[in-house]
């Protein structure tokens, strides 16, 4: 793509701009995550080894961590490692962080995807209906229900489901360990309770935001104009409103990945699900910083990349940019 061509197509310029912002954000966040160690009050080596450690062991440990090197160099070293798959070693048990992450990352991705596959179509569909039937009984009930759901702590929903579906009914296991290489059907059954908890939380948030986005589009003068042309309600929504609501809905979906990630952390703890979230919480409690950094970086990168994708999609579907003057 030549520079001249990029200049002529504003859409390419905007997408390039978005990608630039995305990469920059990722960079700033990685610096922030890296600095979490350096900004520690006191000395991390001293803290980890405890007050009884001799100055020699502390110094040796500092060398091992690379704490005697300048900050910028340490950052480059760390990022270089991360990019080649080396996240350092756990302070708690000395094992490579990458090894700890490997198994758990897959589990978390599975759980998140499981929930997203159910929640996204459900939330978008219900949000559309609520917007369409604004002010109806369905809309009012949906409003109260979703408002309640987003007001509930995630662990409350999780425990209610556990209490009801697992303890009382005995339909699903209350401990959701998928075990080693089970079959898909078995995994879906075992991860059902955590997944459905996530679905409830995410759907509530996403549905409210979808409704707001669609209501906004339905209020546009061109929607009224379509009705004055005699277009049926259904056609107004599918042909006139939806093409314009697509970009905001994609953004809503991407934004709600935040709730998915937050939910994942808590749900994994409740159901003792061996994923990244549980690992992160355990590491925060143990102050196993390299592991916390790795987990934070992965969660942050996923979220930033998905939102970047949504931004690019929104730009790519904007007629003003697709067809410049």
């Amino acid at each position: 793509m030549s520079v001249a061509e990029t200049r002529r197509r504003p859409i390419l310029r905007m997408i390039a701009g978005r990608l630039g912002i995305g990469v920059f954000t990722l960079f700033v966040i990685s610096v922030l995550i890296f600095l979490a160690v350096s900004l520690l009050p006191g000395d991390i080596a001293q803290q980890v080894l405890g007050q009884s450690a001799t100055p020699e062991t502390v110094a040796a440990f500092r060398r091992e961590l690379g704490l005697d090197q300048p900050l910028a160099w340490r950052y480059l070293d760390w990022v270089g490692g991360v990019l080649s798959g080396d996240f350092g070693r756990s302070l708690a048990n000395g094992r490579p962080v990458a090894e700890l992450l490997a198994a758990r990352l897959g589990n978390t991705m599975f759980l998140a995807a499981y929930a997203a596959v159910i929640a996204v179509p459900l939330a978008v569909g219900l949000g559309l209906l609520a917007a369409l039937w604004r002010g109806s009984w369905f809309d009012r009930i949906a409003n109260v229900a979703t408002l309640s759901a987003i007001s509930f702590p995630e662990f409350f929903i999780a425990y209610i489901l556990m209490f009801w579906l697992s303890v009382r009914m005995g339909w699903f296991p209350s401990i959701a360990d998928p075990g080693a290489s089970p079959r898909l059907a078995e995994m879906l059954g075992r991860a059902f309770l955590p997944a459905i908890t996530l679905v409830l939380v995410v759907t509530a948030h996403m549905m409210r935001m979808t409704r707001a986005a669609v209501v906004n589009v339905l209020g546009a003068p061109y929607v009224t104009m379509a009705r004055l042309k005699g277009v049926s309600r259904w056609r107004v929504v599918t042909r006139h409103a939806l093409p314009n609501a697509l970009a905001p809905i994609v953004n809503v979906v991407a934004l709600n990945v935040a709730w998915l990630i937050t939910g994942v952390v808590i749900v994994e703890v409740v159901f003792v699900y061996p994923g990244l979230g549980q690992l992160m919480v355990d590491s925060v409690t143990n102050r196993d910083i390299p592991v916390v950094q790795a987990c934070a970086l992965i969660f942050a990168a996923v979220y930033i990349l998905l939102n970047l994708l949504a931004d690019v999609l929104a730009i790519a579907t904007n007629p003003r940019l697709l067809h410049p003057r």
Partner: protein
Amino acid sequence: MIRMLKTMPPTAILGVLVIAAYAVIALFAPLLAPHAEAQIVGAQFEPWSATYPLGTDTLGRDMLSRLIWGARNTVGVALVTTALAFGIGAIAGLLAAALGGWADLALSRLVDVLMAVPALILTLLALSALGPGVANLVVVVAILDSTRVFRLARATAMNVMVMDYVEAAQLRGEGTWWIISREVLPNISAPLIAEFGLRFCFVFLTISALSFLGLGLPPPMADWGAMVRDNAALITFGDVTPLLPAACIAVLTVSVNFVVDWMLHRASGLKD
């Protein structure tokens, strides 16, 4: 006032009543609670009885007393955090809107970066670096939550800043402080008050979640999130007691949300 009550939907009335009840319980906790919050009064996990209406917890402390003390601790910490978040966010947002230029750009970019990552992840990162403690918890959650207040305060203030009456004040030669306090603030107070309610819900849920994860108020303070975690084992035996503190959290946030929803609805209705 009475006319306002008449136009209130039942959900909002319910919300106001519940919030009032919580306030009373939190304020008068020492008088209402049968036992002190850390006092071990019986055996572990005693069932519900006349002596211990809601049984005892994992260390043999009275559940009901701890629930009542929890109202004071959890709600109190959440309120302080919200107030801090609100102060930081509103002042920064108003300044960004009033000053514009570099100040606005720098603050907005900083907020963009902080909001580019789910707040819980940054909170966990910060708490692992800073270590546990109420002060750390309050500051970290407040700063991360202030980003949303910033966005709202800046956006609503921007809408007012383009009004001709603000330009008239600028032409007169008024300073930034006058413009913010006399021209802008009185005109954005309604959405800001509603936002305070929303922020409280988020902060309250975040702090409860952190408590539940073992990163909240230090023991032996009674704290609803931690109470769920400590007694969660009972659930597998079919006992609902550990759900009670979680229900206390949910009922309060639902109530606040009902009231905020009504306020927002009313504000948007008046605009039409």
